[in-house]
C-alpha cells in the first residue's frame, strides 16, 4: 500500500454526484465572478453607476460576490449531506 488517507474512510456512494454538484456550482460562481472582472476591464464607468439604495455597482457587485460565496457554500453543504445520507443509507441499516 502506497499512500493511505490519514484516517480510515468508509465507502461513499455519493461521490460522483457530489463531484458533479461541485463542478456545477463552481461554474456558476465563476461566471458571476468573471462578470465583475469583465465589467471592470471593459466598462469601468459602469461600476460607478448607482443602483439599489443609492449604492454603486462596485459596492453591490463586490459585496454580492462575498455573500454569494458564503450562501453557495451553505447550499453545497446541505445538498452534499443529503446526498450522502440518502445514498449511503444501506450501509447504516
Amino acid at each position: 500500500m502506497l499512500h493511505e488517507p490519514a484516517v480510515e474512510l468508509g465507502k461513499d456512494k455519493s461521490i460522483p454526484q457530489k463531484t458533479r454538484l461541485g463542478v456545477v456550482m463552481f461554474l456558476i460562481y465563476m461566471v458571476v465572478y468573471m462578470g465583475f472582472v469583465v465589467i471592470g476591464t471593459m466598462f469601468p464607468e459602469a461600476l460607478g453607476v448607482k443602483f439599489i439604495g443609492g449604492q454603486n455597482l462596485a459596492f453591490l457587485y463586490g459585496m454580492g460576490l462575498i455573500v454569494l460565496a458564503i450562501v453557495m457554500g451553505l447550499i453545497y453543504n446541505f445538498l452534499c449531506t443529503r446526498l450522502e445520507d440518502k445514498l449511503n443509507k444501506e450501509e447504516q441499516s
Partner: protein
Amino acid sequence: MIYQISSMAIIIFIFFVLTVLGLSFFFARKTKSASGYYAAGGQIHWAVNGIAFAGDYLSAASFLGICGMIAFFGYDGFLYSIGYLAGWVVALFLVAEPLKRLGKYTFADALDAKFDSRAIKLTAAISTLVVSIFYLIPQMVGAGALVTPLLGLPHWVGVMMVGAVVILIVATAGMTSTTYVQFIKGGLLIVFSLIVVILVLNKGIKLNPSADYHKPIVLAATLAEGRVQVVADSSYQVLGQHEESGLTFVKMTKAGIDSWWKLNNISSTPELEETLTVVETGDGRTLYNGEPKEAGKFYQVGHVNKIVVNGREVEETGPLGPFKFIKTLGTSEVVRFTKKAFTFAGEKITVYFPNITAGSDIIKPGLYYKLDKGASIWSRLDFLSLMLALFLGTSALPHILIRYYTVPSQRAARKSTIVAISAIGFFYILTLFLGTGAMINGSLDLGSSNMSAPLLAKTFGITLFSIISAIAFATILGTVSGLIVASSGAVAHDLMDKYMKIKMTEKQKVKAGRIAAVGVGIVAIMLGILFEKQNVSFLVGLAFAIAASANLPAILMLLFWKRTTAKGISWAIVVGMLTSLVLILLSPTLYEIYGLPAASAPMPLKNPGIISIPLGFLTLVVVSLLTKKREASPALEK
C-alpha cells in the same frame, strides 16, 4: 513610523506570546507519531479547524495589507478581499473533498497518490518549498514592520523574534499547536475587528476627526516671475523652488527647521500648502518634516474635506449604518496624499502632498489599478491578471491544502471549509469599513500603509490599539507556523522519506520534521531581513501567482482529467513555477528594485498570472497526451 512605545502594548504582547507557547508545550507532550506531527492525528473537530483555516488564511496581507491598501487607495484594496475569498470557492467546490480522499500528509502525497513517480515527489516538494518561502517573506517583513515601532527595536530584531518564537512552537509541537494557535487568533481577529468597525460607524464622519488633528497649513504667497518671494507668515523664509511632473514645490525654513510646500493656484491666488517630507540629507541623516525621527513630527493624516449627506453639506454625520456610511463617503470629498520624489541640492526629497479626491472615485476601483482614467491595455490586463491569480491561487497554496488532512472525514473537511469561508467572508466585509475608517480618521502613517488598521484602533484608545497590535502579531505567528509546517513536511517527508528513500523510524521522521522546521525558519528570518523595504501585498500576490501556475493545473487536472500522466504533472509544475518566477523577475516592480527604469522592463505586467497559469495547464495537457499513462507499480494491485 513614530509611535509612543506603549508599556500596555508590551504587556499584552508578552501575555499573548506566553499563552501561545504554553499551549504549544502542552500539546507537544501529546505528539508522538508522524501522523500526529503533520496531520494532528486527524482528530481536529471541523468547527475548530474551520476557524483555524480562517486564522491561517487571514495573514498579515489580509489584516494589515488590505486595510492599508483600502485606506490609501479605496476600493482597489477591496479587490483583494473579493479575489481572495473567491479563491475559497474553487477550494470548496473542486478541491476539498477529492483531495481529502487522496493523500496522507502533504500536497506532494496527494499528487503522487496514483502514480508513485519520483519526478512528482521531487517537483511537488520543491514547489511546496518555493511557494511557502515566498509566502513567508512578506509575513516576516510584516512582523518586522509591526514590531519595530511598537517596541522601538530595529527591523531585524522584530523578524528574529517572530522567527524564534515560531520555530520554537513548530519544532516542539507541529500541527496540533498551530491549529489551536490559529483558532484562537482567527477568533480574536474577527471579534476585535468587529469592535473597531462598530466604533467607526458609531463615530460617523467628521470634518475634524480629533481635537488634535493637524490640517495642512495654507499660506498666501507672493510671486515674481513665477518664483515665490514671500509668504503671509513672515517667520518663514523662502530657500528654493523645484518643479517635478508639472508640480511646483517650494522649500522654506522657520526657526532652523526646513519644510517643503506645494504651490497652488499660480495664476489666480497663489498659495503654499503644507506637505509632509522625508529628506535624506547629504550627510546621511534622515529628517521627517525637517526633524529627526525622535522628534515625532511626522504626523498622521487622513480626513474628509467636505461631507455631503442627501445633497446637504454638514460638519459631521453622527452615527451611521454601514450602507449609509459608504453612501455618504461616496458623495463627499476625502483628502488623500500623493507621493513625489526628487533630488534638490544634494538631498533626496520625498514629498507627500494633499490631494482632494472625490468620494465617488474612492468607492469604486481605479485609484491604483487604472481602469478608467489613465488606463492602458496593459493596466487593464494587469487587473485581469491579478483577479485571475487571486481566484486560482488560494486552492493551490500548500499550507492551506495541508489543513484538509487534519480532520477525521470528508464531511468534516467540507464543513470546516464552509466555516472558514463564512468567517473569512465576514472579515473581508469588515475590511472595507476598517480601511475607509482609517482613511478619514486621521490615522494614516504615510510611511507605512500596513499600520493603518492598528492606528485606527489607536484613535479609539491605547487599550484597543495594544490588543489589536498583539493580535496582528499573533496573526503573523499563526501564518508563519502553518507555512513552516508545510515546508518542513516538504523537506522531511516528501524529499527525505519518499524521494530520497532514507529509512527512518516514526521517531526519526518526527525529528527530521523538527530539524527541517528550524532550517526553514532560519532561511525565512534571513530573507525577511533582506526584503525589509518590500511591499507586503506585492510579495503575497507573487506567492499566489506561483501557486496558481505551478500547483493548480496539477491538482485540478489530476482530479478531473483521466488522461493526466505523471510526466504531465511534473512538467506542469516545473513550467508553471519557472514561467511565473521569470516573468516576475522581469516585471516593472522588480526592475525598480534592481535600480533600473520600470518602463524598460521586458514584461509589462506586474502579475504574471494571465500568462503563466494558462501555460501551466497547456503544458500538463500536451505532455500528458504525449506520454503513456504510467500504471502504478504491481504491488498496488490487490
